[in-house]
């Protein structure tokens, strides 16, 4: 449990929730780190980044394709995914087909949906902690 009398818990409810959600979206696990759940943050960071890197390694960055519906799930990993999409479109011009593409899409897409789950969970926990502090 985080020290509720210090740090980000001095923020109002809405800015705190926004900060936790936005940070968790940019870097998987950062939302949990802000609210003091260090172990969860480390596990989330390591697990989600592993899934992203394995997906990108299997299928190359060509799997980040803005024309595919999977792109919206991949974007939940981090806004930096959009940078990879730009790199692929403007610099690399890579392409991938068949089974590697499927597996890469599944890995990166599922990692994105897991990060969305973590963001929602971090915002919920921050709200719970903030409410508990205010009721004291």
């Amino acid at each position, binding site marked *: 449990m985080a020290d509720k009398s210090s740090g980000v818990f001095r923020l109002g409810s809405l800015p705190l929730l926004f900060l936790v959600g936005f940070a968790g979206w940019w870097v998987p696990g950062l939302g949990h780190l802000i609210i003091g759940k260090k172990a969860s943050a480390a596990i*989330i960071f390591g*697990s*989600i980044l592993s899934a992203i890197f394995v997906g990108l*390694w299997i*299928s190359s960055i060509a799997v980040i394709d803005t024309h595919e519906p999977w792109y919206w799930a991949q974007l939940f990993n981090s806004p930096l995914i959009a940078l990879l999409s730009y790199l692929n479109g403007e610099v690399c011009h890579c392409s991938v087909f*068949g089974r590697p593409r499927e597996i890469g899409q*599944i890995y990166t897409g599922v990692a994105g949906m897991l990060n969305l*789950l973590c963001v929602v969970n971090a915002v919920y926990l921050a709200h719970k902690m903030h409410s508990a502090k205010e009721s004291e």
Partner: protein
Amino acid sequence: MIMHVTSILASFVSPVDIGTTPQSLLLALPLIAVIAVVYKATKLEEFTFASFVKESAILFGSISVFMILAAVGLYLVMQFTVG
């Protein structure tokens, strides 16, 4: 050092060769492990290493068994309907 960095980056711009084989289904296992670990990291209130590993392993096994049962069920449906 630069050669190492270059070769690591190069591995992300060319896909790995994976055939459409039954063995490629094993690639589901690491993803199931990630799902189980991340889900339990968000759900567990009391965080001890032993309980976390135990809960994650149970969830990993549950998902794996359910997927195997679903695959067997679909296979049987296909056998009885299409032949």
